[in-house]
């Protein structure tokens, strides 16, 4: 889901950079205000976790691969803003050091995986759980938060890629950037994610949620009473 350089037109990647920059500024402000010093190591662990989980490529039918992102469980455990910061950090390092995702596309990739995904996951969890302390309800909320978060991130990626032929083409009619139309990108991304990768993300989310609920329930941001 890491869009490389060259796939997005400037008309797409510049506005998305703007949006992501805005969210980064807000995330820093929120972390300064909300995240206590003793939680700083958790921010590092969350980012390390997201980095590592993304290394576990999973084969998808059709000859491609995908991976979980972890932005959902981080949002549920540490709050959406901490997840924005942690996953953005990971995406910046991946782009600069490992060439995973483009530099020009960094704003877009952050918007999909480090802005939309944390908030969709967090809101999904809250919406389904509704303050319940009931085990099963918590677990369903956790699963669906991971599932929805990754699915939305994948769909945003598909739309950003799929609109490129509409935005810019060469005089001979060939697309200038990402070549496939929405009718190709959306089904291709939907299939791999809805049927496999989002299920993996949801399962991972619920397992980690269970672990933290058992060992450090006071930490979990999404079930704190405030």
């Amino acid at each position, binding site marked *: 889901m890491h869009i490389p350089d*060259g796939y997005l037109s400037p008309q797409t990647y510049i506005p998305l950079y703007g949006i992501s920059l805005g969210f980064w500024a807000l995330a*820093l402000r929120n972390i300064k205000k909300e995240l206590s010093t003793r939680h700083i190591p958790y921010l590092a662990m969350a980012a390390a976790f997201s980095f590592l989980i993304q290394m576990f490529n999973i084969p998808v039918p059709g000859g491609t691969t995908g991976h979980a992102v972890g932005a959902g469980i981080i949002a549920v455990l540490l709050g959406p803003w901490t997840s924005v910061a942690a996953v953005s950090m990971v995406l910046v390092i991946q782009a600069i050091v*490992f060439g*995973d995702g483009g530099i020009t596309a960094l704003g877009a990739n952050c918007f999909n995986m480090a802005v939309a995904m944390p908030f969709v996951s967090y809101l999904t969890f809250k919406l389904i759980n509704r303050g319940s302390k009931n085990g099963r309800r918590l677990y369903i909320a956790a699963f669906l938060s991971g599932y929805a978060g990754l699915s939305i991130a994948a769909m945003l990626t598909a739309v950003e890629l799929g609109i490129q032929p509409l935005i810019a083409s060469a005089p001979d009619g060939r697309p200038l*950037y990402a070549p496939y139309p929405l009718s190709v990108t959306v089904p291709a991304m939907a299939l791999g994610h809805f049927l496999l990768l989002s299920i993996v993300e949801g399962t991972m989310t619920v397992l980690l949620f269970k672990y933290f609920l058992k060992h450090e329930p006071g930490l979990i941001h999404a079930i704190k009473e405030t």
Partner: protein
Amino acid sequence: MKGFQKKLWFGLLIMALLSPLGIVIPRLFNSDGAWGEWGTDKLGRLLGYVPEGLRKYADFWKAPVSDYSIGGEGAPLSARIFSYIGSGILGIFLVGLAVYLISRLLGKHGK
């Protein structure tokens, strides 16, 4: 708290050591890379041409550890496994550094 955090760091280290599964398992299924993240050569094969703007931007940045592999994508599997684990550990180190810098920036110190 301390013991719990130690356990989590240990878990992350185990993840880094297991990370080569993320290149070995897709190989068994002949799966190669994420959908839509193809390099210009593969895209050229798929399409019959490389979009002009895409070609211009594609090599915009030369990453020091491209594809999490020191020897490039063509390196032998054993070398790839080794550099993949190294990349995982480098990643942990780099995010640690980034968090440290951000916490300094925000004026939050200590553990």
